[in-house]
């Protein structure tokens, strides 16, 4: 379970370019829930995700994961609880290492790393089995360098890596935004499958309202650093993109003017 309480983050405080990105954000995600997060540019989606992962430290507020206070922990100290897939396909994997070495790194996420061999025969066999789920033929390319793979392939492997070890929360930061539509659809479908089979607690940031409603069981919308919409259950089941836009206008009393959100 994730419990974010009154999170505040300000970039460049006390300067003319001061930017209050998170302004008292509250969100509780119960165990096993798949939440999609939407919001216009600058709403604080990525900042919120980075605060949960520990890449950014919050100025105020607390973050608890399964009851543990992780507010002051650095990213590497939270990695036993948090798994993530980055927006940039190049960011989630190490291109100088081979596919199997990348997976061996993820296999030890948040655990002690000793002087034993990072790759064993049984571990390779296990990775091969996992990679075959992707149906990309990567199970025969274990010793290929990650840099040889396309963005979509790398993102698919990133997803697999994030699910190798159990996590308390899986963070997906617009992880299909940099892919072409076909590959994006493939990675999304894979995401849904992995989250479902692993019964994972997950939070997916997306730019597309369509995606936000089609995936997961709850959708929250961020605006100016706060949660302004939170729909789930029956209310969400019957919802379409225009309904979501309408709801936004009603609560805010203003029109949503982000082309990207409207067009998606």
């Amino acid at each position, binding site marked *: 379970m994730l419990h974010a309480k009154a999170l505040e983050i300000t970039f460049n405080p006390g300067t003319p370019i001061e930017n209050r990105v998170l302004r008292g954000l509250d969100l509780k995600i119960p165990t096993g829930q798949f939440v999609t997060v939407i919001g216009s540019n600058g709403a604080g989606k990525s900042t919120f995700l980075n605060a949960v992962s520990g890449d950014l430290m919050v100025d105020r507020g607390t973050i608890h994961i399964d009851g543990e206070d992780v507010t002051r922990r*650095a990213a590497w100290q939270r*990695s036993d609880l948090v798994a993530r897939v980055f927006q940039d396909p190049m960011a989630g994997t190490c291109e100088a290492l081979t596919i199997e070495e990348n997976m061996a790194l993820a296999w*030890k996420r948040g655990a002690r790393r*000793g002087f034993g061999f990072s790759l064993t025969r049984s571990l390779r066999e296990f990775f091969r089995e996992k990679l075959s789920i992707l149906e990309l033929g990567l199970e025969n390319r274990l010793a290929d360098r990650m840099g040889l793979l396309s963005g979509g392939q790398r993102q698919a492997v990133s997803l697999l890596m994030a699910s190798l070890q159990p996590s308390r929360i899986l963070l997906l930061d617009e992880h299909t935004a940099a892919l*072409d539509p076909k590959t994006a659809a493939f990675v999304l479908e894979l995401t849904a499958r992995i989250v479902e089979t692993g019964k994972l607690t997950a939070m997916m940031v997306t730019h597309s309202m369509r995606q936000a409603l089609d995936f997961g069981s709850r959708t929250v919308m961020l605006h100016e650093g706060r949660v302004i919409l939170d729909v789930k259950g029956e209310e969400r089941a019957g919802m379409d993109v225009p309904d979501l836009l309408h709801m936004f206008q009603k609560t805010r009393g203003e029109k949503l003017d982000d082309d990207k959100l409207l067009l998606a």
Partner: protein
Amino acid sequence: MSLIASLGAIEIGLIFGLVALGVYLSFRIINFPDLTVDGSFPLGGAVAAALIVAGWNPFAATGAAIAAGALSGWLTAWLNVRLRIMQLLASILVMIALYSINLRVMGKPNIALIDEPTVFSMLAFGGMPDYLLKPLVLLAIVVLVKVLLDLFFASEAGLAMRATGGNPRMARAQGISTDRQTLWGLALSNALVALAGALFVQSQGGADISMGIGTIVVGLAAVIIGETILPARSLVVTTLACVLGAVLYRFFIALALNSDFIGLKAQDLNLVTAVLVAFALLVPAWKRKLPARRPAARTVSPMAAKEAR
């Protein structure tokens, strides 16, 4: 070039093979341009020489030299990760400071080891002549270090260090403290370089305060030459290439300086070094200009085929 001169070149080449491995670790593995090397090489030499003269066992003295080198690398990394001083500047600061420290350690600008016991004299057996014994002992040490390094790189801890240089953000997301990896990595790198310094003074018969000048250039030259003649398929090959690069480098230098018809003298060493490194840097570019051989066709996956379009 005579046999003894060739063996002499190989001997120094093997010593600089250790420097090359250290430089490879900092520059390539953890992606940290570390110039501490110019100070940690003479530091290793100074500590070993001073302790041997003070009556220490040469092996213990060499061990102390390794520890001193590790400490200097640690200090450079600490200045960078804790005090946020730029990498290059942090290493230059430690390098400069080490000049004074080396003078303090030796107590004078040079120490002669001509009649002192060394790791080589202690390992002498069956009256084997020095010019054979030294390269053999050094070869054994370098092979041991290379194999240990290969095993380390293949371990979980070694993989964490490689990820730190390759993609620090991803490494942190996997639970790796990149700060800690940098501290250990530079300590290990400079420990290797100090070991080379300690062996250098024992093989050459003395330590000198100016012996460190240009160590980083030689180390980098060795890495670049090695990578050029033996393009990496795996790390095991690359570490071999580093050592091979160092030996070849010293060999070419000796060849150039010993060939009377070229007319080069000892004082031309740095010029020859620069020309050699420039040449090694150009070769990969020339190779690219040649008509490229097509890589063997891979089994194309459905998605790769889709994306190739």
